[in-house]
């Protein structure tokens, strides 16, 4: 059943790709220890949410609101990228490392 559904594009197939992408992003954020790679995992999770949103919008008869929300989400993601990377650079200045294990204190 699952193989048959995945060979053509159905709402379920898109949702499954979205869920799997989310879990891969989550496992990157949990298992890797480099700040920058974890950041990429978070971007993947945001994208998985976008994919589910646009898939539902299509199966609601091509709802434009889905694309509007997608637009707002990528604007927020761009803000998050700018501030997040600035924080990573700030942390690197203090600790000389982008390892999350070492960043266990808010003080110097």
């Amino acid at each position, binding site marked *: *059943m699952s193989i048959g559904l*995945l060979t*053509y*594009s*159905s*709402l*379920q*197939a*898109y*949702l*499954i*790709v979205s*869920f*799997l*992408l989310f*879990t*891969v*992003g989550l*496992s*990157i954020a*949990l*298992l*890797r*220890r480099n700040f*920058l*790679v974890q*950041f*990429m995992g978070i*971007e*993947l999770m945001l*994208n998985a949410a*976008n*994919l589910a949103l*646009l*898939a539902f919008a*299509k*199966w609601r*008869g*091509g709802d*434009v*609101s889905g*694309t*509007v929300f997608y*637009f*707002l989400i990528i*604007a*927020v*993601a*761009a*803000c998050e*990228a*700018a*501030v997040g*990377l*600035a924080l*990573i*650079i*700030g942390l690197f200045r203090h600790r000389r490392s*982008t390892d999350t294990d*070492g960043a266990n204190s808010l003080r110097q």
Partner: protein
Amino acid sequence: MFLAFALVTLGGAFALLIQRNAVQAGLCMMLSFFGMAGLFLLLANPVAAALQIIVYSGAITVLVLFVVMLLQSHREEPAEHPRYIQKAISAILVIVLALGAVKLVYSSETLANMQAVSPVPDPITLQKLGEQLFSEHLVALEAMGLLLLAAMVAAVILIKKEA
């Protein structure tokens, strides 16, 4: 086509998970974003596909790779304490979450009904998006502009060296 784009997306994401080099991980992320742009095209949404390539594959990937090269942190440092138990627990949790989600999607009758009644929609155009954005969601658009400005100022202040 769907299967090809889905495989590119998930394969890029999985390569990002197992890739040791941060620069190559960034390129895997770019591949995954390109696959997702293809999926958006299949969803009759060329506007989202173009935005995905411009913003994610272009801007965000370049920003992340720039920071990786700036900080010279290509390789993950060896761990002081290899936390095997925590890693095993998170891996198991993630796998359970993935299997649970897949099972939920296939067993849901609401989704099957939604799937059954849908007609083939017209593609989303920039005109439709603009009309919707500047009429119903005008406040959200303005708030987004303010948020982008605030994020830019915050990034500059965070980066600035203390005088």
